[in-house]
């Protein structure tokens, strides 16, 4: 078992023997079962993440980082094992229940931002609040507050196409935080940004970790340096866990 914090802290997320497999090669009625090939994307991963943790998820391309991140964020369910998010076993939930869990407990930041292009920055930030049934005035106020917090108060009415990459990612972070989630996951959040903008985004992500856990998947060591601990995956298996002082000494696979 890998723990990222002291055992006395509150675990917000626990994954217990999580395995995720995919079947390839059976795409049509004419395909025979022999064509099917099972690929293990995540293999028997066990970890506990506590409130206040900033956890890096490292590994080479294809190591299962994104798949594990999706499992931890309740976007996907494991083939085997359990993911317990804020006391709820996500493997027992229906799709609609998992959507509700994500809405209440998880904020997600994507590498490609994934803002809705036809909406303003403010409307993008307020999107989760629409699904929550929050009154319009409250939505607007809260979105404005968060845009102010990420330094985009004067860009609230702009569409994503009118914003730079760094600004779009800050809008995405504001959207992820607008429901005050207990878990924030970010998949390669600086992957499309220059180093200075990436540093600003990391500042934002790490600064909001006091009341929640933050998991950042990246293969960028500069990003991983900002984490309290790093989980390293290789071929879907958790290879090691390191603290900030330790993980610079571990030889990394590219």
């Amino acid at each position, binding site marked *: 078992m890998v723990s990222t914090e002291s055992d006395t802290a509150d675990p917000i997320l626990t994954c217990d023997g999580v395995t995720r497999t995919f079947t390839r090669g059976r795409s049509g009625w004419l395909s025979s079962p022999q064509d099917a090939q099972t690929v293990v994307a995540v293999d028997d991963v066990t970890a506990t993440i506590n409130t206040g943790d900033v956890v890096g998820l490292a590994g080479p391309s294809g190591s299962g980082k994104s798949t594990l991140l999706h499992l931890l964020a309740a976007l996907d369910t494991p083939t085997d094992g359990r993911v317990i998010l804020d006391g709820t076993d996500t493997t027992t939930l229906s799709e609609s229940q998992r959507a509700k869990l994500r809405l209440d407990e998880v904020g997600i930041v*994507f590498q490609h931002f994934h803002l809705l292009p036809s909406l303003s920055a403010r409307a993008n930030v307020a999107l989760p609040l629409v*699904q929550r*049934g929050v009154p319009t005035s409250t939505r607007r106020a809260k979105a404005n507050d968060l845009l102010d917090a990420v330094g985009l108060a004067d860009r609230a009415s702009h569409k994503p196409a009118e914003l730079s990459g760094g600004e779009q990612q800050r809008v995405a972070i504001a959207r992820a935080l607008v429901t005050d989630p207990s878990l924030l996951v970010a998949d390669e959040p600086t992957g499309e940004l220059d180093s200075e903008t990436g540093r600003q985004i990391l500042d934002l992500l790490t600064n909001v970790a006091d009341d929640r856990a933050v998991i950042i998947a990246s293969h960028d060591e500069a990003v991983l340096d900002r984490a309290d601990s790093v989980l390293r995956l290789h071929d879907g298996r958790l290879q090691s866990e390191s603290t900030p002082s330790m993980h610079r000494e571990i030889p990394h696979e590219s």
Partner: protein
Amino acid sequence: MSRNLRRLAGVVRLGLARFTGRLFGGDSRQLWSSIAGVAFAVMLMTTVGGISLGLASQSAIESEDVDYWVVPDAASASAIAVSVDAPRLGGVHSVTDRLGEDDRVDYATPVLIRVLELSNPQTGHSEYVLVAGVIPDSTNRSIIGLPTAPLEPGDPHYADGNYDGRWTGQAVLSSGAATLLDAEQGTTLSPKTGSATNRSLTVSGVAESEYTTGVGEVPVALVHLSEAQTLSGATSGDQADQILVSTDDAAVAGDIEQLYPQTNVVKRTGFAQQQLSSSSLPLAIAVGAVLTAFVVGTLFVATMMGLEVLSERASLATLAAIGYSSSSRSLLLVVETLGVTLSGAVVGLGLGIGGIELTNVLTERYLGIASVARFDPLLVAAAFVVSVLIGLFASVYPVWLSHRANPVEVLQ
């Protein structure tokens, strides 16, 4: 407002915001194509529906102040017995008076049609003219293309059936007849008949007549009924060939049929044109137009919105990832699809009304039938109802497509 209602309202507003945002920004070809498809379907439905309404209500006749023509049943032996050359109606003055007492009837007049030889004694010109005897009222109407205004209202010579009242001698000539007779307003004409050679007519007006046959314009004249009866020897039995009844109330037709046994009540757009439609044809056309618009519109919108979902799958996957339920995402797509179809309905209605006007212009110009198509507010309601139905049915496909997409795969 409860949380669920606020969510519902919020998702609807979000759908509308996404729809308008994509419509007027970025790549919106599929949306515009969908709107164009619905507009085309609604335009066809409105135009064809307008034609159906026109046929059903025979509005073409209303435009000529004539709705129904009471004509003798040619197959009836008793009707034939009235005249040796053609079936005629008898006692037409009293029947017309009874028709005039009905509040729903705007105007009624018997019409006696005879070919008479008229001559201009001053010039010696003589010509056979189609003379129509009518009972004009105080309103200027158009009968066989000639105005009734130059004729004194009523039928002074009839005098309660004795044909001894004042002889007005007024006649309205078509310009063709006036040319042939070398006559103008005030010219005295002499009818050459066997029964009343001492009677004369005075031209009280000359007008362009639209009454034509295959060989060109026919020289026609409009006179008082009793004077036409006197000149043609049709006073016995107070005869006329038919009765024109002008009304806006289609229900009058049934009552008119009760007036005369062995007669037909027909609807015609002009003096010599046949009934435009049978009773069930307009309904069949209208139903066909609605069904065609619905099926074509639904298939087209479903296809285009399916393509739209494929191009917007990242946005939909994002909404799923941040916690939007499948029902909210479905509602979003339904709202967007309804936005497309309702926009198409507005555009299609405008085009359809234009189509109705164009149809009327073309049929009047090339077929001589005015106002074949008719606009009715019901067409607006029909367009919006059909477009909503198209939106609801067509949205099934994009909703199904969106549910098939795995957000995790899309967002990778």
